[in-house]
């Protein structure tokens, strides 16, 4: 017993320092790796949080919803502009329509490209207009529209409640498109101007809605530009419509 105990003691005396030092080395390596990993993570996190565009919108984001719906909205504006160019010789309306079609076609392409770069489908992930029912940046649910933004935006629609799957503001109906399709000359110009004024006002309402909900710089710059140019075009078209009685 004693001999065995002493043997054990000897073994311990010799082995313990080796085991202890290898354990210490392992701990040092683990601590080192952890330190490096944490420093890297903190660095990347800080960089990410402080970068100007930290968030890539996902498929259910307000930005993706806006980009999909506004493409559809713009496509119809292009369609109507191309239609009126075939139905009147008036140079003012024709050049307005030319400008409008190419501008909105280019803008639809921008929104298409955003969705591609965000790697989300072009196809809606939820019903049309759902994004407009989402809370605004200051936490309101669409009260933005109820509190008389209509004055500044010139929106004639007092109905502010948008429902998921609802019709986009300003979008012409099939019947309205058919009436433009059937008309010629000044009549076609009048129908076009009337429809396009409403179309722009609806577009402005949607652009205001994304400005109230998104912090993504590209989207904000785009929407701000849209509000400004379409507002001035609304005024120009109102004058043109007045000239045509």
């Amino acid at each position: 017993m004693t001999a065995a105990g002493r043997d054990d003691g000897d073994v311990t005396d010799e082995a313990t320092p080796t085991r202890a030092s290898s354990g210490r080395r392992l701990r040092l390596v683990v601590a080192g790796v952890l330190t490096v990993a944490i420093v890297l993570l903190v660095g990347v996190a800080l960089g990410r949080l402080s970068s100007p565009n930290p968030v890539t919108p996902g498929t259910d984001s307000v930005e993706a919803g806006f980009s999909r719906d506004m493409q559809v909205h713009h496509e119809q504006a292009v369609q109507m502009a191309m239609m009126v160019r075939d139905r009147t010789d008036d140079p003012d309306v024709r050049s307005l329509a030319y400008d409008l079609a190419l501008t909105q076609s280019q803008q639809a392409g921008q929104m298409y490209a955003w969705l591609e770069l965000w790697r989300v489908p072009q196809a809606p992930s939820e019903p049309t207009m759902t994004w407009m029912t989402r809370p605004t940046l200051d936490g309101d649910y669409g009260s933005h529209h109820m509190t008389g933004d209509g004055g500044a935006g010139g929106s004639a629609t007092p109905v502010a409640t948008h429902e998921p799957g609802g019709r986009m503001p300003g979008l012409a109906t099939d019947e309205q498109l058919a009436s433009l399709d059937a008309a010629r000359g000044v009549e076609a110009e009048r129908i076009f101007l009337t429809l396009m004024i409403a179309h722009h006002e609806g577009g402005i309402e949607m652009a205001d809605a994304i400005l109230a909900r998104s912090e993504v710089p590209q989207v904000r710059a785009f929407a701000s530009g849209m509000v400004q140019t379409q507002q001035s075009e609304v005024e120009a078209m109102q004058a043109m419509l007045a000239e045509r009685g």
Partner: protein
Amino acid sequence: MASSDKPTDKPTVKQQRDARRQEKVAELKRQQARAKRNRTIGIVTASVAGAAVVALVVTFVVTSGQPRQDPQAIEVDGVKTYSDLTANHVGGTVDYAMTPPAGGDHNQVWLNCGVYTEPVPNENAVHDLEHGAVWFTYDPEQVSESEIEALRDFAPDTYAVVSPYEGLDSPMYVSAWGAQLPFSNVADDEATVSDFVTKYWKSTNAPEPGAPCTGGVDGTGKIA
């Protein structure tokens, strides 16, 4: 000096052995205490580091926004795909490699997208596929009126054509440029057909996605 005065106090061999043993025991206890302390430090450090890593990962997930859904990563159950399709503008009829056509040469004028009650010309409809539209076809012999109605409701409002197509080997088909899916009806196959639309509607798989689907030619029986 005191010890030399008391030689009788000199430890016996047994006492010496006991002393050595006690020393050894004490040394062992010190080692155990040190190991225990080191272990405690290690556990605390590892826990703190682990918590920090978890917190950072959570931060990443939260700041990386909503979930992405890469359309290219969607696998559509039962889809047939076709590569190396030609896309020339040709006059007359085209003999397509598949029925209904899912891409290939086509008429220079595209079909206006929408809902049709009569069969539409292949050559115009294929031009729509080139522009990123999807084309829903159903065999009138194999589907009910309510199934047709459900299909019309399901189809996207833009960049979609719905039309009858006689002699299909499946009650319904949805086709895009280079891809097509046979199915029975929307009610039974909604998940798969939705996947198809999510992946292929206006997708970059088509040569010219976003090119017009209006301002072309109407087929007969356009109701929407």
